[in-house]
Every structure is written in structure tokens, then in C-alpha cells.
């Protein structure tokens, strides 16, 4: 989004291309492996030769917020916009004080089409247990059984999120979120807390999260 020098863009692009060619394993759990790859790959790019790499290449983070957590729920999620720095980077982790939550992970929400439960596939048991379904699913069995069935979604942990140089990556509802488990106390509107994001290259970046009802 931010206007960037042409040279850096080319560097970033070739970096991205070389990554693609190498076929960087998507989000391996072991950080060392992916860091090694990144370092090797980024060495020839113009961006990585900047001497002020640590600061100049760090992604910037804006619009950081977490949704209020309903009573009785010990989970929460935070959202933000991450703008890539000089070089491609990856968000590899997130952490908060144990005074806030027991565990913090980076999650994504995906379509769960592959794991559709039997109900949606017109499973045998359904017709017998379901008087109310007669007007819906069975009548659709002929040509398009799935029409009245909404697509399912689920969330899962991701090992990393790619943050391409100069590009904006949104962590937003329905996509990526930073997930908190074991909240010590509910998130209340107006409260703030520190969240430390770990990037493969830029290292740790701490941001302030504001609790809101909506973005």
C-alpha cells in the first residue's frame, strides 16, 4: 500500500519468485529449518542487504483489536493489519503475559468441506430420525443434495503467515486471528494489553491490543 522504491519492489518480487521456485515448505513447525531457508534465500535480495535490516525491514502493525469475550468464555481472538517491511517475512508466533491468557496461537478459519459430517452427505440414518427433514434434504437428493446445506467452517492453528514485503495482510474475522486460550479474566471494552508478535526475520514486535465490541 505504501509507495515503495522500485528497486525494493523488484528485490521483493525476485525474493518471492525464488521462494516459489525453491518451494519453501509451508509453515514447518521447526523454526530453525524455515529460518535457515529464509536467510539463504534472502541474502541476494537488495532488501536484505540494508544495514538497518532489523528496524527498516520490520513489518508494521496497525488496527490491533480484540473482541470482548462473552461471560463464561475463556477464549478470545485478536485482529490486526500487518504491513510487510522491506523484505518478505513470516509471522511465526504470538504471545501474551500469563496474566492475560494461558496460551496464545495463530489460527485461521477454513472451509471444512473435506470433513463434512455424514448428515450433509445424505447419510442413511438421517431419514429415520428426522421427521422435519422430509421437506428439505430428501427432496433434494435427486439433483443437488447439498443445496440446502450451508458450507461448514472450522478453525485451526497455523505455523506461520507469510507477510510479503510491502503488502498488507489482514488478520480479520473469517480469516486469520490470534487466538487466546485460558483467559485469566474476560476481555472488557476499552481495556488494553500487550501482545508480542514473533516474525521469522524481524524478531519480536510488541503491540498494544484494544478490546472492542466490533472493529
Amino acid at each position, binding site marked *: 500500500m505504501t509507495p515503495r522504491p522500485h528497486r525494493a519492489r523488484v528485490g521483493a518480487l525476485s525474493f518471492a519468485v525464488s521462494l516459489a521456485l525453491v518451494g519453501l515448505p509451508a509453515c514447518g513447525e521447526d523454526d530453525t529449518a524455515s529460518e535457515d531457508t529464509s536467510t539463504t534465500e534472502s541474502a541476494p535480495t537488495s532488501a536484505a542487504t540494508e544495514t538497518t535490516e532489523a528496524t527498516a525491514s520490520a513489518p508494521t502493525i496497525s*488496527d490491533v483489536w480484540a*473482541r470482548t*469475550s*462473552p*461471560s*463464561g*468464555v475463556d*477464549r*478470545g*481472538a485478536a*485482529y490486526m*493489519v500487518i504491513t510487510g517491511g522491506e523484505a518478505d517475512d513470516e509471522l511465526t508466533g504470538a504471545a501474551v503475559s500469563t496474566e492475560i491468557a494461558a496460551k496464545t496461537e495463530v*489460527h485461521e*478459519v477454513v*472451509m*471444512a*468441506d473435506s*470433513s*463434512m*459430517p455424514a*448428515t*450433509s452427505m445424505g447419510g442413511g*440414518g*438421517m431419514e429415520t*430420525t*428426522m*421427521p*422435519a*427433514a422430509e*421437506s*428439505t*434434504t430428501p*427432496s*433434494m437428493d435427486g*439433483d*443437488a443434495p*447439498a*443445496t*440446502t*446445506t*450451508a*458450507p*461448514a*467452517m*472450522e*478453525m*485451526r492453528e497455523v505455523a506461520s503467515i507469510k507477510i510479503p514485503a510491502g503488502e498488507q495482510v*489482514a488478520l*480479520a*474475522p*473469517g*480469516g486469520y*486471528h490470534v*487466538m*487466546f*486460550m485460558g483467559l485469566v479474566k474476560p476481555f472488557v471494552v476499552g481495556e488494553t494489553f500487550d501482545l508480542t508478535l514473533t516474525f521469522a526475520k524481524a524478531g519480536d514486535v510488541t503491540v498494544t491490543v484494544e478490546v472492542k*465490541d*466490533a*472493529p
Partner: protein
Amino acid sequence: MRLIRTAVAALALVTLAAVGTACGEEDTAGPKAGSDHLPDKLAGVELDPAPDVTDATLPRADDGSAFSFVPEAGDVQLVYFGYTACPDICPTTLSDLRNALKSIGKTAAGHVRVAMATIDPRRDSSVVLSGYLQSFFGDGVALRTDDDSQLQAAATAFGATYEAKYPNQGEPQVSHSTYLYAVDHTGHVVVAWPFGTTAADMAHDLELLLHREKEGAQ
């Protein structure tokens, strides 16, 4: 931020349109992407045929009594299948609905009933579920059963799906369809809002549905 939700909603619609072409979903592709809908046309998805949920029922979490999804004439019943350990999809949809109800005003909102059924009864006790829903809607009705066949029956009547896996260790894996359903007094699901439907679109549809209910009552 909106982009992603729109994209997800669009993806959901594309998926739906892809499987639904045979059933004449002629209006799913058109107006959903924008926010300016014709006053007499619903912004959400009109399932065809509209599911009949007259015979579906689930126990109320508070007293265990059987809850009917069919509202009185003049009212609209909204139904959501979700779970409280869902920090992303569920609260986003419920919060958008809360904004929609605010925007249509107290009188109209008084004719909209909200119910949420947990698809994760192992973790959602009655108390947790009721507290969760009522933090969004003071008079929301929480629905809960330990009998999975009963829950399946109700969900299937709507065309909703869910799956909860509880591994011996680690996080339970829960997936669920993310539509918010609106039921009219005839017991039919008249519109379903995919995840990502804006509060403005929900408000638009609620006003239209309440208007239809009013006309039907005369």
C-alpha cells in the same frame, strides 16, 4: 478488514451457487456482493425449497422445556447453531446481528426472537451457553441437548451441519455451517445469512421480513 469477510461470504455463495444451480437459485449470484439491495428483495440466501422446521424442536438450556422454532405471526425467529469456544465466527455473526437489531429500532427488534443451539454440548453447559448468548441478546433463548440424534435432527431440518471431535488430548476440533437462519410464522426458513453478511444487510432483511409478516397478518 471487511475484505476478508466479504471474500469468505462470496466464497460461501460461490460454493452454494455451484452446487445449487440445478435448483434455480437465480438470485444468489446477483445482489449479495453489494450492500444496496432492492427494497423488496432479500439480501441473504433464499433456500429453495425453503426448509420447513415446523416439527423441529430442541430443549431450552434453562428449563429443558421443548422449544419451537415457529414464531407467532408478526414475529421472526432467528436461529444459530454455534458454540461458545468459537472466538471468531460465532461472536462476529452475533455481534453483527446485535448491530442490525440496534439499527432497526426497539419496536421492530421486539418482534425478532433469537435462539442459539450449541453444537458442542460437552463443553457448553447450560449456564455457560445462556450467559454467552445473553451477553449479546438479553432475551436470547439458549438451546442445548446431550442427545446428539436430537441435535442432528434439528440441525438437518435447517440444513445446518456440524461436527465435533474430541481427541483424548489436545483441542477439540469443531466445524459447523455458519448460516444464521430466519424462520417465519409458517415455520419456513425464509432467509439464511452466510458468515460475513453485514449488519446493514441483516437489518434490511429483517425489516423486509417484518413488513411481510405485518402484511400477512392483515
